[in-house]
């Protein structure tokens, strides 16, 4: 590692170390019986990792997010392209989307339980609801933002509608779609934890509630929170990789 890179990561690492040290100090000085020290958190996480339950919970959460987000992308991207391209579709559908979008996904929990009961379908539905709207909105505005000179050039060469769509509209919007996916996956990961708190038997959200209810295991509560944060970071990093594709990167050049 070059000294320059080392210097770049030194300050954030120092902040994290400071927070952990403060946390440790406060817990030791107050002699808290419930709130764990950082070491107890690590030990608790290690115990769950060894007996395998941690991986089951992570897998369950990721599966729900993957399904809900995948369905949302499959609906939102074609719908967004259509709404962006066809003025009538935009005028007809945009107002209802704009109205539904600011409703917190948490507000849908009672309806999810009413419609789908307590099971895997409810959290998937909530994730779908939470990530579909940002992706529709982002894709639609991406179509609206296509520069006219590109559409004119395509018209000048007299290409078919299929070619226009495949070679101009979709690639022009792709960077916006990737932005939408980043927002979508971020919201989906936020929502899965909340959704899993409604009485399921698996997932990181369940793990948090269960650890608290089963004898105030706050070491596991905090361990879950940190793991949720780290996985969220990885999901965001994975969608950021999409920005490196040559067909997307043009947008970020210069």
């Amino acid at each position, binding site marked *: 590692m070059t000294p320059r890179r080392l210097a770049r990561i030194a300050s954030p690492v120092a902040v994290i170390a400071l927070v952990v040290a403060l946390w440790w100090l406060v817990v030791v000085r107050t002699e808290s019986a419930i709130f764990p020290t950082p070491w107890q958190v690590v030990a608790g996480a290690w115990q769950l990792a060894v007996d395998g339950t941690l991986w089951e919970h992570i897998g369950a959460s990721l599966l729900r997010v993957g399904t809900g987000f995948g369905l949302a992308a499959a609906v939102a991207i074609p719908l967004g392209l259509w709404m962006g391209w066809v003025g009538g579709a935009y005028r007809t559908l945009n107002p209802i989307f704009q109205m539904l979008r600011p409703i917190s996904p948490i507000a849908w929990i009672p309806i999810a339980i009413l419609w789908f009961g307590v099971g895997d379908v409810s959290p998937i539905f909530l994730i779908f609801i939470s990530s579909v709207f940002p992706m529709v909105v982002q894709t639609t505005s991406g179509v609206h933002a296509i520069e006219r000179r590109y559409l004119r050039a395509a018209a000048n060469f007299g290409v078919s509608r299929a070619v226009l769509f495949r070679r101009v509209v979709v690639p*022009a919007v792709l960077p916006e779609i990737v932005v939408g996916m980043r927002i979508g996956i971020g919201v989906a990961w936020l929502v899965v934890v909340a959704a899993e708190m409604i009485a399921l038997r698996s997932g990181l959200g369940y793990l948090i509630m269960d650890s608290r209810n089963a004898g105030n295991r706050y070491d596991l509560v905090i361990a879950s929170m940190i793991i949720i944060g780290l996985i969220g970071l990885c999901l965001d990093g994975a969608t950021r990789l999409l920005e490196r594709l040559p067909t997307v990167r*043009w947008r970020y050049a210069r």
Partner: protein
Amino acid sequence: MPASKIAVRGVRKAFASATGVLPVIDGVGLDVADGEFVAIVGPSGCGKSTLLNIVAGFETPDAGTVTVDGAPQRGPGPKGIVISQHGSVFPWLTVQQNLMFGLAGEHRRENAALADHYAALVGLKGFEASYPRELSGGMLKRVELARALVVKPEILYMDEPFSALDALMNLRMRNELLRILDEERHTVLLITHDVEEAVYMADRVLVLSPRPTTIQASFAVDLPRPRRLSSPECQALREAVLKELGV
């Protein structure tokens, strides 16, 4: 006299503005012969670009007609390709993909060969796989020119094509264009505010009046190429055009 390649008759155009109707083009008529290079110069904001858009089929006139090869202009098409100041090279496609954009899809191999031929013609050999962001402004202009030439257009509509380039590259691209036109005879309609550019390249220079615009004067440029801008003939012509423009 042979029939005109492009015939414009009594074209008028007005736009709605905040203060009412703004007449932009006030009855313009012009003819461009097959293979002729006509430059149109005029003060900025006089409606030059609007006129070109109408001739190329991107806009419809309020009155008057545009015919190309005797048939009414019904809209843009590969017969006449527009090259504009801002450029429209697709940034998400490579140079070769850009050049192949206007070619029909079924003969991939032949299309790629044709694209590479024109890439070489404009001096882009070795850059076929590059993305536009990796190219300079002058090279982007070459891509745009090659992409137009690949579809073998009969007419090139150029709207201040080189004005966004630096002065040196501007001069270089003029010569490149003339060299290519020597090899492939196109009819060219050039819009510019650069009188020297017009005198250097065109067979005929038309001067537009301020808005609402009409054709104010026409100069034939009967000088052999390559021309020298410092020659007395070129200088005299330049003076005459500038005088029409009131400069």
